[in-house]
């Protein structure tokens, strides 16, 4: 499930090491160091980027952002109120080295897990948000991420508030074995509850969203939005290339491809997201 980039040739016994795609990890430090957009190479300063909602003013490249930045760019100032931050991961199957990985991720992100939950207001409309963080172990989903997403969804049900999920993930967290696989069914069962009670669920797919996240809650929104140019799929492109033994077409698994194939409702640029979500919230009220 967790098809991270750069692993698949090895997986299929093709031994050439794959060069790490540095643009993933270092897009933001690229800007800080080179004073340019990694996508179009136009002059760009970090402060300018922050002003433009972390979108390149020139080429509209959408940079990956963390939950704190997401809230800052989306919610009404001061409206965010975090919940369920008291849940922490354990090494449920005794996987070697997992505790160390967790500590590293916590230190690197300053966050407790790959999912952040909270109440927020969007142009005065109260909602529940659950936001994934790709920087926390590739946004991988284990028991805590599953529990947090489930609680966000069920809190929306309990309080009768629209639920908005922001996805970004490499897939399920292998270090938690079967427990992580079960989180797909868990979050989806929670969404089934929303379905029965007709509480709206909006999903915003951001770059990248893969594996078991795509094969569960990411595809279950009443409305599914995507940020421009985001990579979204079940299997990673390298896995697919080695399965079908041919090059994938240009733009494969990009947001635009998913719209064309009928799996995403609309692509919404970051500067229009607040307005769009507000409109969707207003049009999904349940009398």
């Amino acid at each position, binding site marked *: 499930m967790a098809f991270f980039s750069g692993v698949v040739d090895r*997986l299929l016994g093709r031994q050439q090491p794959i060069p790490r795609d540095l643009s993933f990890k270092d897009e933001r430090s690229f800007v800080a160091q080179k004073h340019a957009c990694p996508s179009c190479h136009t002059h760009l300063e970090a402060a300018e980027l922050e002003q433009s909602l972390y979108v390149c003013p020139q080429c509209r490249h959408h940079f990956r952002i963390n939950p704190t930045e997401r809230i800052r760019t989306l919610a009404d100032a001061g409206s965010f109120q975090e919940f369920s931050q008291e849940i922490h991961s354990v090494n449920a199957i005794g996987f070697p080295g997992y505790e160390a990985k967790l500590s590293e991720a916590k230190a690197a992100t300053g966050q407790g897990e790959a999912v952040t939950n909270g109440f927020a207001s969007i142009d005065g409309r109260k909602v529940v948000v659950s936001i994934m963080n790709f920087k926390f172990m590739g946004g991988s989903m284990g028991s805590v991420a599953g529990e947090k997403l489930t609680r966000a969804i069920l809190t929306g049900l309990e309080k009768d508030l629209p639920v908005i999920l922001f996805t970004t993930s490499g897939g399920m967290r292998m270090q938690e074995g079967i427990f992580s696989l079960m989180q797909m069914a868990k979050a989806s069962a929670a969404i089934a509850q929303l379905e029965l009670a007709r509480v709206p669920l909006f999903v915003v797919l951001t770059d990248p969203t893969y594996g078991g996240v795509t094969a569960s809650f990411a595809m279950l929104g009443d409305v599914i939005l995507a940020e421009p140019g985001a990579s979204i799929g079940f299997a990673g492109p390298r896995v697919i290339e080695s*399965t079908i033994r041919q090059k994938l077409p240009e733009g494969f698994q990009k947001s635009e491809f998913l719209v064309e194939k009928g799996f995403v409702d609309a692509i919404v640029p970051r500067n229009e997201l607040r307005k769009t979500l507000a409109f969707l919230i207003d049009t999904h009220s349940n009398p």
Partner: protein
Amino acid sequence: MDQNEIQKKIQELRSLANKSNVDIQSDLKRLQEKLSDGRLSPQELWKKILLARNSDRPTTLEIIQHITENFIELHGDRAYGDDAALVGGIGLLEGRPVTFLGHQKGRNMKENIRRNYGWAHPEGYRKALRLAKQAEKFGRPLITFIDTAGAYPGLASEERGIGEAIARNLRDFAMLKVPVLCFIIGEGGSGGAIGIGVGNEVYMLENSFYSVISPEGCASILLRDPNKASDAAAQLKLLPSDLMSFGIIDGIVPEPDGGAHADHALTAANIKTQILESLKRLEQKTGEQLVRERMTKFLSMGRFVEEGGTKQNFFQRLFSLNRRA
């Protein structure tokens, strides 16, 4: 006691607790601790993985033929096509109509090409959901047989939305108002497996495995060496005894000496015994009860620590909500 005996005891305790309201938590915990002792060496464990993948094991259609009096296969998702890697239909089991679903591997190269080695495409999962809803409409129990390395990771699969197909199954299987029983009969490969794996009760054959990723995949990604698949298999804790001790599955179906391939009829008979026992229990329940129990089962899966520990209260509060629907 050997592992099988312990597993049997756990099963006995579980069914006892289901019938009467006895508190068995302490007994269960003790047994499960025993079970997690006595680990296999990586070599022994790898033999089990190979056994689970043995191409002579009974397949979904063979098991159905063995346990039903009459069976008709139903084809197609009514949208794109028919997927020979995931089959389904209606059979008579001791006189009662039952809907069956399952991954279908081939026995030889030619059949495997037609069956895509049991790697299903989106249309397979959509057919599964169509037949599951048909079962619900006509009040038939649903029984699924899981045996796949995974959902097919190809171009066509992505274009037709394999993620969406599995996701929808996970959500909609949770809401089915009929008994749903799942059996992992060989390989329980990740999303492709759980795509037909949301049941009231989930069982594994003695020589099967169920995992978030293949041992080979895990070895490549986390251990950075595809040759360490047997080590990865040990670390992933993917055997029936592991999943039993985690409380993820409800029981283990014994296989004949040597493995399921040694005696298809006996393997099928053991599965049938378990189906009949489970159905006796589940058919007593209303549709609402079945949905609630299935949801609660999956909503409570996961291991984590919580400061203050309000998990139980949270779900209790939730299930006492008045629904508007």
